[in-house]
């Protein structure tokens, strides 16, 4: 085999690294988590509402509900703001100013999640406790912080898809007498729909996966939350809080929580990929 052939094969091997890491992650997490799900039973693991590891009672329904509400809340905060910012950067300001603002949005994505959590803890939590009552450590605080954290994802992908539209769309609409806003609302946003939806799904993935910031501001109660002011626990925080001291079945139950999380994320990722591919076709 020539040197060139050998090089090509070695690059192929390197390129398979990312897919093999994904496979390794799946294998090891499943290997740790699946036996426990088997032992407890899928139904009572997913739908059981009592999580008492010391009494061998492993039901993660409250965490599924917690993740659901916090994620939904973050989308209610993040999607309108994010899409508005994308439109702002593309349509409302001159490109030179957009070029200055874009790195700032990137910075928002680079701030470590613990800083967001800390800010939520010292600013939002007392604010909510004093003005709305309850413990302050709540789904509301978590949703607000997560809503901000997913903004960079939503803004950058939505902006890319708005920018990728042919100029003729805008020119056509304007020349038919539409106002700039009618063009944005009736032509540009619908045309960029698939990219925007993909950005929302990816943002959702980020929200579901966030751990440290949520440990700091959700309050971590294992009961089913009954209002947006009650404290909650998500799938990720369940792992993050207890992994430090868990052993035996308890540790396996945390890996099993990871298995559920893994499936949710893979589902969302595939959905985003399919939607954005459809948009391109």
């Amino acid at each position, binding site marked *: 085999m020539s*040197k*060139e052939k050998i*090089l090509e094969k*070695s*690059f192929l091997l*390197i*390129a*398979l*690294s*990312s*897919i093999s890491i*994904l496979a*390794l*992650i799946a294998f*090891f997490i499943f290997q740790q988590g699946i036996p426990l799900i088997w032992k407890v039973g899928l139904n009572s693991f997913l739908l059981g509402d009592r999580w008492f590891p010391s009494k061998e009672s492993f039901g993660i329904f409250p965490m599924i509900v917690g993740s659901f509400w916090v994620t939904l809340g973050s989308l209610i905060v993040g999607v*309108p*703001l994010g899409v508005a910012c994308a439109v*702002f*950067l593309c349509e*409302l300001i001159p490109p030179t100013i957009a070029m200055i*603002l874009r790195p*700032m949005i*990137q*910075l*928002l994505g*680079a*701030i*470590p*999640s*613990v*800083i967001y*959590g*800390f*800010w939520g*803890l010292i600013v939002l939590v007392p604010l909510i406790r004093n003005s709305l009552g309850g413990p302050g450590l709540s789904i509301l605080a978590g949703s607000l912080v997560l809503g*901000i954290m997913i903004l960079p994802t939503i803004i950058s992908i939505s902006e890319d898809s708005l920018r990728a539209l042919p100029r003729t769309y805008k020119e056509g609409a304007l020349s038919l007498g539409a106002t*700039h*806003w*009618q063009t944005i609302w009736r032509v540009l946003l619908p045309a960029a729909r698939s990219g925007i939806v993909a950005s929302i799904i*990816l943002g959702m*993935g980020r929200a*579901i*996966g966030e*751990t*440290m910031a949520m*440990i*700091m501001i959700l309050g971590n109660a294992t009961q089913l939350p009954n209002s947006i002011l009650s404290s909650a626990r998500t799938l*990720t925080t369940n*792992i*993050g809080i207890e*992994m430090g001291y868990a052993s035996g079945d308890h540790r396996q139950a945390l*890996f099993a929580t990871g298995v559920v999380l*893994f499936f949710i*994320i*893979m589902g*969302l*990722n*595939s959905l*985003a*990929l399919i939607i954005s591919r459809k948009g391109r076709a």
Partner: protein
Amino acid sequence: MKISRHHTQGLAKGVIWVAAFSTLAVMFWILYQVLREGLPLLHPDFFIQAPRQMGRAGGIFSTIIGTIALTVVAIVIATPLGVGTAIFLQEYTRESGVSRVIRFGTDCLAGVPSIIFGLFGFVFFVIFLRMGWSILSGGLTLATMILPTIICTAEEAIKSVPYTYREVSFALGGTRWQTIRKMVLPNAFPGILTGVLLGVGRSVGETAAVILTAGSSFITPDSLFSPIRTMAVHFYILAREGISMEMAYATGAALILLILAINTVANWMMYRYAHKA
């Protein structure tokens, strides 16, 4: 009375301006909140003293060493893998079954939450490969986490090298590897470096994956197998366990300054790169 479409337009644009400004305002609020309390506490001693009394007193020296060590390991492992993958995807294969599988894997890996990387690093590196809670386990875990970022930016950088460069090299009798090494990589270098810097930023700020794989000991490490605590983990523990708000603010401010610096350099390079072409 029906509102005229020009009024609707004014109203809608107003709402968008407000949304954009509140986004920026919240960002500055977050930075300001931590920096206002933290910056005055950043005395030179704070950076060169070891933490004392669980972090209530002293400085953050060992956590700085921990952060650097972990990031270096992550970058040293992830850069060759990431750039190699990008070279394969861009130079050795056209859109094919293999490249589609690799891209799918990379996209999925990019979406995996850091706590899952932490769980994986814990069973695989810490327990299965018996590396224990250590710089090596933590660095390898971070490497797997930043790999997609590096692949993605390196691919973009390689893609942006004009095809004529390669044609010239081939016409002069250069082999594929010579072309890659002498033409493609030098021209794609700034873009690749930007991706690496983004990876550095993510490694520095990561907590969930690090705490499960590198531990949280703040004894200054003496080998790759020593457990360590990074600045981000230190900040998290100080704030969450209420050990010392003052030290938390100071550590947070140091962390933000570091991230700001990394991001500024990355952006500056991207800007220069974009304007050179």
